[in-house]
């Protein structure tokens, strides 16, 4: 069963800049997909179509069978999004408030919010920082808070835009651990990166975007061989004919 179905998606920004041109794509429920591409390839733009933050000029995006244009709220409940810039998605005054923002918007009861937020903060290891101001967190902690804010809404799909930007080795490992655990729990994961090294070992599918089009799509081991032609660096291990090792080892 495909949870994401995109047909003939074309998009242009209001200033006339073309960003996506004829994207056809389906993503199976429970899969772990990497979306790669050079700067400006259209990765973030494509992700914003998955929860109706942007609407297609042409074509259609359906989430769980429901067109996003018809029911954006359904899409937003199903697809949780962690943005490229962790700072600008902080809404709450404390860590706990921030994680509770989404559930409050969904009009859940106080107990349900409490349970869900506690669980989400515990999952990303921020339970002890619940009363801190989010602005004073480190970069890695902010990213984890952003993930918790999405987790608390219990989405079926989690979309992460450049989740490893600005993180140190330990930070990358922590965020990666959470992503892998979520995938094991049945959440569909879509990760958008321009450096394949960190996630390739865990993915089941690799899609490369170039200038708003899908340039390559398939099993990671195969697609990665063509990566350099589309402006994405091939991990050193692959160049030497081997396999990329997991960063969690």
């Amino acid at each position, binding site marked *: 069963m495909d949870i994401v179905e995109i047909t003939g998606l074309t998009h242009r920004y209001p200033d006339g800049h073309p960003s996506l041109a004829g994207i056809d794509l389906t993503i199976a429920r429970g899969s772990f997909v990497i979306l790669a591409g050079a700067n400006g390839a259209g990765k973030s733009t494509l992700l*914003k179509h998955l*929860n109706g*933050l942007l609407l297609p000029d042409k074509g259609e995006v359906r989430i769980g069978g429901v067109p996003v244009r018809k029911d954006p*709220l359904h899409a*937003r*409940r199903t697809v*949780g*999004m962690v*943005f490229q*810039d962790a700072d*600008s*998605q*902080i*809404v*709450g*005054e*404390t860590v706990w*408030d921030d994680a509770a*923002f*989404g*559930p*409050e*918007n*969904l*009009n*859940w*009861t*106080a107990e349900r*919010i409490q349970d869900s937020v506690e669980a989400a903060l515990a999952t990303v290891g921020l339970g002890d920082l619940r*009363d801190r*101001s989010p*602005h*004073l967190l480190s970069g890695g902690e902010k990213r984890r808070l952003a993930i918790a*804010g*999405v987790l608390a*809404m219990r989405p079926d799909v989690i979309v992460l835009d450049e989740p490893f930007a600005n993180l140190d080795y330990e930070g990358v490992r922590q965020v990666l651990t959470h992503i892998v655990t979520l995938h094991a729990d049945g959440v569909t994961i879509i990760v958008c990166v321009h450096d394949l090294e960190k996630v390739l070992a865990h993915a089941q599918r690799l899609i490369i975007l170039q200038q708003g089009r899908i340039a390559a799509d398939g099993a990671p081991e195969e697609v990665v061989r063509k990566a350099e032609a589309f402006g994405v660096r091939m991990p050193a291990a692959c160049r030497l004919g081997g396999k990329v090792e997991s960063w969690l080892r």
Partner: protein
Amino acid sequence: MAAVAFGYHHAATWLHGLDVRVKLAAMVLLSMASLRAGGAAIVLAISVALLLLRHVRQPVARWLVSLRWYAVLLAGIVLVRALTTPGEPLFGMSRWPLSGPGMEEGLLLAGRLLFVTLFGLLLAATTRPSQIRSAVEWYLRPVPFVPHRQAATMIGLLVRFIPVILTQATEQGEALRARAIDNRRNPLRRTVFLCMPLLRRTFVTADRLALAMEARCYGSQRSTGHPWRMTVRDWSALAGAGGLCLTMLAIG
């Protein structure tokens, strides 16, 4: 991050646990009373504020350092009043006659401002902005034609944005100084270089924030905040604040 010195500091004190509506009401009542209060009443009120500050274990020393420019402003007010108000000069004959009544008036005015500031800081330090927001929402609810939910969220976002903008201004200033902006003589050009990028950045940040809020399903149908419950402690605090107001008015 100078802006953070005055924010909410979590601690388990009596004032932290007080119903926010009571705190807001006390703040408004006392501010109004201080407008009519005389010297003795202001001294009393400032002492109460300082006692409360000690009680909630705030970093008072750090506050005082951060408030030094405010103190300069208050001193300026006293001085201007003393110089411009006609009346008996304080010190025999001098080129700058500091008038007695002017001095008194200036001190009174500065005292009122100081009291209101201290009380505002006290409120901010012991209350989460989200609680202030819910309290404002509660007070706005009976007012017709005001979308209280949206109004409260706007206040909350404004409070959230102030430290962000201040931090960005500091960063921007540092980046400009690293590229030798100080060599520019024209202060107007310098200000433009600082303000234009800052404004643009603020708008971009606001835009991103709006998008992130939308992605998390922000709308008018939100879970209501925590349930309101007035305890004996809250009522007695309210009575205490009212009593202080009356005392201030009585002793003049």
